[in-house]
């Protein structure tokens, strides 16, 4: 077991939580986007995470998946993207869900940051044995 295993594991946790935060921010930013380059309204993205396939452990992003749940239908005949009946297809982003995910990601980020500090402190203590 290397002296830096704990630090690297916590580092992987930090970067994965940061990546989740980016995806959440993108979802919130696009909560009202009705036109995308692929056509149609924006669809919510989700970052899947899984244990890293390294002997040392850690975590990694396992893939970015598109949420295919039904889109929101909003009645707004004045909207440029409204259909013949006056309905607009809005992204399937629920800002409340994104907020909850953001809290979870931020809490997990904090916990990983603390684990990193502890690992660093331990290494420092080990060095101090050699006085």
């Amino acid at each position, binding site marked *: *077991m290397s002296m830096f*295993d*704990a630090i690297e*594991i*916590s580092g*992987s*946790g930090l970067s*994965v*939580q940061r990546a*989740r935060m980016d995806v959440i921010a993108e979802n919130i930013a696009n909560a009202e986007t009705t036109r995308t380059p692929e056509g149609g309204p924006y669809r919510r993205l989700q970052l*899947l*995470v*899984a*244990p890293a396939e390294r002997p040392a*452990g*850690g*975590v990694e992003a396992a893939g970015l998946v598109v949420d295919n749940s039904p889109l929101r239908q909003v009645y707004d005949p004045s909207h440029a993207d409204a259909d013949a009946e006056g309905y607009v297809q809005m992204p399937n982003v629920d800002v409340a869900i994104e907020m909850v995910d953001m809290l*979870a*990601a931020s*809490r*997990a980020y904090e*916990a*990983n940051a*603390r*684990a*990193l500090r*502890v*690992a660093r*402190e*331990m290494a420092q*203590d*080990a060095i*101090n*044995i*050699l*006085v």
Partner: protein
Amino acid sequence: MLSNITTAALERGLSGVYARQVAIADNLANVESAGYRARGVEFEVELRGAVEAERSGRNTSGRGRSLVESVQPQMAERDTPSRRDGNNVSIETELVEMSKSCVQYKMLARLLGKKLRMMSRAIGGGSAQ
């Protein structure tokens, strides 16, 4: 004597606590991984048994490493209830365990340092600080 029971036990203790910190770091990194099972590290019971066995003279397997020196930290899954995604990491449990490990590591490191300085003083006739 450079390798006695105390230094060996302190060294195995440091190594065990560090292994525990690695497991905790892994648990915290995987707090959102579906199906991940939290793991903990145990070594204290085995270490204590080895120390007691050596103290009472039932020492070693002859040559090579002593009982205390061959204590290895054991990793085991935590059997706490899991969430709906099959993950059973509790951030609070891990943070508590981490605080304990941090203090434990500091204490062991300080004791080992003291012990080594004591020996170096004995060797150098007080020339070490």
